[in-house]
């Protein structure tokens, strides 16, 4: 970096250079070309920061316009009537639905994704694992609206059998009781979300498992460990935090997914104890479905709900970052 101070125009370093001079020397930005280029690239970075700030400010401002006129409790009300006077709307159902569908998706997707990642790194023949990983990469790019269409056409009708079975044997738990409505419920949404986030979790986990140092696996092998024992002793402990952050990435996608939920769920504004009975809603789905008929005030109300979704995804992201940071410290201590 300092090599660029050979620039002839650089003044000889004075014993007490000013802070600005030091900074400029550090960036080597003394020629006009350097200054312009640094300005452009730094400007882009600052623009990104400004954008984030603008998103937070504008969403909060528009949301406050709506929430201040809300006649019901914004956090706890079970209704969404923005067109009436006085307007009454609340996010309780949406928050519940968003979290429940995402939990269902995670419970299904994470173990399967980890297993597939292990399959690709430790079980599949090498000739097979390359192409499969490639295809899974491609599947991560399938647009969510297509998943939605597929879910409505294939997944929903095929859920009837599973729903009946769950109701017969596990209906007593309450979570799996079914009144026989179309299976456009939170469980179906969760399964569809699981299928959608499977590729991304698999890909990230696969990368993590591939990075397990050979020597840790050989340590287990040399002790006479079977393949599964090698995975349990060296691969999983090493990859645990990586898998967690991969899952958080998937969770972020599940929380914010719009079109797939909107096409599969038949929404209402109630909290259902059972995962099988249709109804409920998610933030993103509600915005997409209510947007068409919404007045300007209605749109502000939807923006308010979007703000809550934004905050939730920020929290999830923060958690993922914290975990990754901890892992970095950990591996640093080992180096």
């Amino acid at each position, binding site marked *: 970096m300092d090599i660029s101070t050979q620039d002839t125009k650089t003044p000889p370093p004075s014993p007490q250079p000013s802070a600005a001079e030091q900074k400029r020397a550090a960036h080597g930005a003394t020629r006009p070309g350097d200054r312009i280029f640094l300005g452009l690239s730094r400007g882009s970075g600052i623009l990104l920061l400004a954008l984030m700030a603008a998103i937070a400010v504008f969403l909060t401002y528009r949301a406050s316009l709506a929430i201040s006129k809300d006649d019901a409790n914004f956090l706890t009300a079970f209704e969404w009537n923005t067109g009436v006077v006085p307007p009454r709307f609340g996010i309780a159902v949406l928050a519940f639905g968003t979290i429940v569908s995402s939990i269902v998706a995670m419970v299904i997707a994470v173990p399967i994704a980890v297993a597939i990642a292990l399959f690709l790194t430790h079980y599949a023949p*090498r000739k097979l694992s390359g192409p499969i990983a490639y295809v899974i990469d491609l599947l991560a790019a399938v647009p969510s609206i297509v998943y939605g269409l597929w879910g409505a056409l294939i997944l929903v009708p095929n859920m009837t059998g599973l729903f009946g079975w769950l109701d017969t044997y596990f209906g007593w738990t309450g979570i799996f009781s079914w009144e026989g409505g179309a299976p456009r419920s939170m469980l179906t949404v969760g399964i569809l979300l699981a299928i959608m986030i499977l590729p991304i979790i698999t890909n990230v986990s696969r990368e993590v498992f591939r990075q397990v*140092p050979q*020597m*840790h696996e*050989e*340590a*287990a*092998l*040399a*002790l*006479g*460990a*079977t393949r599964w*024992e090698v995975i349990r*002793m*060296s691969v999983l*402990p*090493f990859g645990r935090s990586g898998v967690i952050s991969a899952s958080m990435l998937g969770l972020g996608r599940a929380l914010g997914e719009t079109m797939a939920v909107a096409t599969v769920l038949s929404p209402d504004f109630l909290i259902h104890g059972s995962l099988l009975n249709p109804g409920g809603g998610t933030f993103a789905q509600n915005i997409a479905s209510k947007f068409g008929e919404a007045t300007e005030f209605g749109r502000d109300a939807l923006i308010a709900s979007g703000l809550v979704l934004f905050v939730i995804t920020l929290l999830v992201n923060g958690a993922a970052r914290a975990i990754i940071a901890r892992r970095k410290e*950990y591996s640093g*201590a*080992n180096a």
Partner: protein
Amino acid sequence: MAKRIDVSGLTAYYGTHKAIEDISMTVEPRSVTAFIGPSGCGKSTFLRTLNRMHEVTPGGRVEGKVLLDDEDLYGAGIDPVSVRREVGMVFQRPNPFPTMSIFDNVAAGLRLNGNYKKSELQDVVEKSLKGANLWNEVKDRLNKPGSGLSGGQQQRLCIARAIAVEPNVLLMDEPCSALDPISTLAIEDLIGELKERFTIVIVTHNMQQAARVSDRTAFFNLAAVGQPGKLIEIDDTERIFSNPSVQATEDYISGRFG
């Protein structure tokens, strides 16, 4: 406990590349046998064929026989997992399990092989750590992660882990190349003690080390880069270093090449 190894006509491949060719030798029990030779001559590959670790590398395969007290490691129906249980290995870089404590590292091999009582485990861990000359340094922090130890201590931890399962043979793949001279000395002393109980095979780049620790020395060489490595000769260490029967060995030892 210690067993004899008889290798005959052993050839190892990486995919289509022949790494070592037609190696035959006998490794005596309760002794230290050192493998020396220039880089890439296949001594590490050969070592890894002795506990079937070679085939873990993608494309790795082996022809020939390795008899461990009359039983062919590559015979039909032999379980490589059991082979590695009997033939322990210490690697070039210390590789304790990073997420396990010192205690758990040493106990790892035992826990694989069935249910031990806590007290039994404690006994074996203590005995193994003492066997590896590490007990006094770690006895107060057995529950701390093994990755917190110094490099030399980690390597002795790995040796303790390997001898805890009471193998018949202990293979060491350049165990001191990542260590400072003082840690190296500690490991070399340890090798001298361990040969009372185990058959030890050690790969080393350091000829002085081979001369110091081993009873017998095998010299490996390859005709040219890309050619398979071959065993040039194996003899008593004293003879190899004073009066080897092959000219190439003498050239190598006197530093004329390699």
